[in-house]
């Protein structure tokens, strides 16, 4: 178990000087403080099956810290047998777990929440360590993960059914919610800690069992979480982790004994997940790619809008399905001259702010943007930037000239990039980039931009920045996206609301988080009763 290699939790005082690895004097005389890394040795991760840490028989691949390019762990590509073994364990414990009173199941979550709070800083640093995001972003992710343990801890209330007396003479009718069995969770790489928690706590609180297959690029967060799950006292087999790649994911999709799949990833894969789940009669939540528009109206508060846009476009290095992608500067009601002036004002402020973003290692507290998660992703983004140029867009800010705070290998880094003169038919205006690239689109009218959004095949999120209630209401009413921001750059639903999505951004019916997740993980059984 790799816990022993982590810094003993009692020593962790994230603000303490003990955690300052080095202080590097920068050219400008500013100090860069890099927090201590959470792991000291390269470990081979294990599977967590039936409450035991089991070595996989599969081959291993390297897990690499994208900021330092150092190998930080080895993760096995587990075999189908190992998934089967986790599934057998989960099926075995299911009858007992579903009979455990909801309050007792909830208490496991209470204990897990306490452990997560206790290990808050360590969990956050692991995310930065394996993913590259900034420490602020990682702490935010940890908090969102904890919130998704807090909400289903209310399962005794959330899982309640309802009833009605005397639906006919002396006959009563009532509904109960029952768990289904074993669910598979196949999360994305971009939120290694939080994404599985959109589902797993809801599944187990309602009496189901889970098998989580973390992304092989970022498997450490879920491994550490499983150690806390173990400590929290969940019965063996209720919560399992099997490391691996596509092969075991496909096996999970095909397996008739898995009752449902929760997937987060690309639309291409999500569509296949949805199809395969349909073929085997599984429930499915597939949250997929996005191309999110942010509208800046002429009456927007520009200062606050730009700050929100920086987080939206460049937070998490643009690697989130809620990231801003297209910045539409809307000139509704303006004449040509006023629109040109408004457009220039917004673009200048946007580029100025983006060019000042400090890029570097996420464990440096002063850094505002980390690297892409791996070099392949950077290459993909570079390819799309080139495509943007080839198709006629103009670079207002070229992030390919990498400038870093600190002496880190540039392999996975890009600086913020801003395209102007983008049209919605261009590849960069249409398809997900998943990197720190903003595409600025001119839109003279409100209706024109709504039509552009409508014509885009994704429908994950959209935001409007305005002081007008009328525009805000029209926007939220008409726009075909699942998560809407009004003067909010990242429309991320809290744990007690569903994480929505439409069109090619979501496949399924019920969403993760909140009451919808409780419904997803339970079957509604209706009883009609009469006593003679």
């Amino acid at each position, binding site marked *: 178990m790799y816990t022993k290699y982590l810094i003993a939790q009692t020593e962790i005082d994230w*603000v303490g000087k003990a955690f300052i690895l080095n202080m590097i004097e920068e050219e400008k005389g500013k100090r860069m*403080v890099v927090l201590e890394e959470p792991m000291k040795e390269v470990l081979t991760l294990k599977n967590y099956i039936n409450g035991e840490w089991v070595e996989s028989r599969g081959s291993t691949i390297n897990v690499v810290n994208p900021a330092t390019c150092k190998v930080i762990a080895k993760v096995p590509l587990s075999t189908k047998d190992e998934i089967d073994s986790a599934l057998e364990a989960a099926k075995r414990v299911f009858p007992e777990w579903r009979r455990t009173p909801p309050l007792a199941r909830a208490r496991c979550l209470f204990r897990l929440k306490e452990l997560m709070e206790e290990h*808050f800083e360590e969990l956050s640093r692991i995310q930065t360590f394996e993913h590259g995001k*900034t*420490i*602020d*972003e990682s*702490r*935010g*992710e940890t*908090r*969102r993960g904890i919130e998704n343990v807090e909400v289903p801890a209310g399962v005794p209330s959330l899982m309640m059914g309802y009833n009605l007396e005397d639906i006919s003479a002396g006959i009563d009718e009532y509904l109960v919610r029952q768990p289904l069995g074993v669910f598979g969770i196949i999360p994305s790489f971009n*939120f290694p800690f939080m994404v599985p928690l959109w589902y797993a706590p809801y599944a187990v609180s309602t009496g189901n069992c889970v098998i989580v297959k973390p992304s092989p690029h970022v498997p450490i967060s879920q491994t550490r979480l499983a150690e806390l799950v173990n400590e929290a006292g969940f019965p063996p087999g209720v919560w399992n982790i099997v490391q691996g790649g596509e092969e075991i994911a496909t096996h999970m999709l095909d397996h008739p004994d898995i009752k449902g799949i929760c997937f987060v990833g690309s639309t291409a894969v999500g569509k296949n997940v949805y199809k395969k789940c349909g073929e085997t009669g599984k429930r499915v939540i597939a949250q997929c790619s996005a191309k999110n528009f942010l509208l800046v109206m002429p009456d927007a508060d520009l200062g*606050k809008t730009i*700050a*929100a846009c*920086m*987080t939206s476009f460049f*937070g*998490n290095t643009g690697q*989130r399905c*809620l990231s801003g992608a297209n910045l539409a500067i809307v000139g509704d009601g303006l004449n040509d001259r006023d629109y040109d002036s408004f457009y220039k004002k917004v673009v200048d402020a946007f580029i100025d*702010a983006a060019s*000042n*973003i*400090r890029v570097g290692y996420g464990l440096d*507290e*002063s*850094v*505002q*943007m980390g690297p892409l998660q791996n070099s392949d992703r950077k290459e993909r983004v570079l390819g799309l930037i080139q495509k943007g140029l080839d198709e006629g867009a103009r670079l207002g800010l070229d992030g390919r000239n990498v400038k870093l705070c600190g002496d880190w290998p540039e392999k996975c880094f890009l600086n913020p990039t801003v395209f102007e003169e983008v049209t919605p038919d261009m590849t960069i205006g249409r398809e997900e980039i998943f990197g720190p690239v903003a595409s600025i689109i001119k839109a003279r009218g409100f209706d024109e931009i709504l039509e552009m959004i409508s014509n885009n095949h994704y429908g994950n999120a959209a935001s409007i920045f305005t002081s007008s209630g009328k525009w805000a209401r029209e926007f939220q009413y008409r726009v075909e996206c699942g998560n809407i921001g009004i003067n909010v*750059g*990242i*429309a*991320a639903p809290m744990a007690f609301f569903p994480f929505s999505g439409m069109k090619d951004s979501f496949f399924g019916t019920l969403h993760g988080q909140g009451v919808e997740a409780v419904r997803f993980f339970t079957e509604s059984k209706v009883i009609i009763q009469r006593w003679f």
Partner: protein
Amino acid sequence: MSSVTISTIISFATKFEEDSSRLYSKLAELSVEKKDVLMSFAKESIENSLFVTRTYRETVSDALETSFSFEGLDLNDYIVETTLKNNIDYAEALRTAINVEEKAINFYLEASKRSKSLLSTIPRALTVVAERRSRRKLKLESLLSQTD
């Protein structure tokens, strides 16, 4: 224009409180009569540190402007000497402490003002600490007047 992340702000605040706590522990050694009140300041600084850290951790969100909310705030403006010189007399030590409090109050009020776009608990926590520090400054001024 310089930008400061909230993580840096919280680290700065915590360091400020730790240094302040050490200052008051040392100051308490200079006055047997006022030891209790000065030690209570040392303890309060540790509580401030925990309070600010806890508030941050409980409200930080990846979706808010945590990395972009303190535009233009220069932490160099709030750096102050918190160690007492050897053989310093009690009155001079009180003046040093009052100076520290002034800097701290300004820091917390400015950081609070600039963090309005974050969840309300963060600016509120920073304001609460500024208020505690203001009360402490008044008390220190009163102690200083008693030395004249």
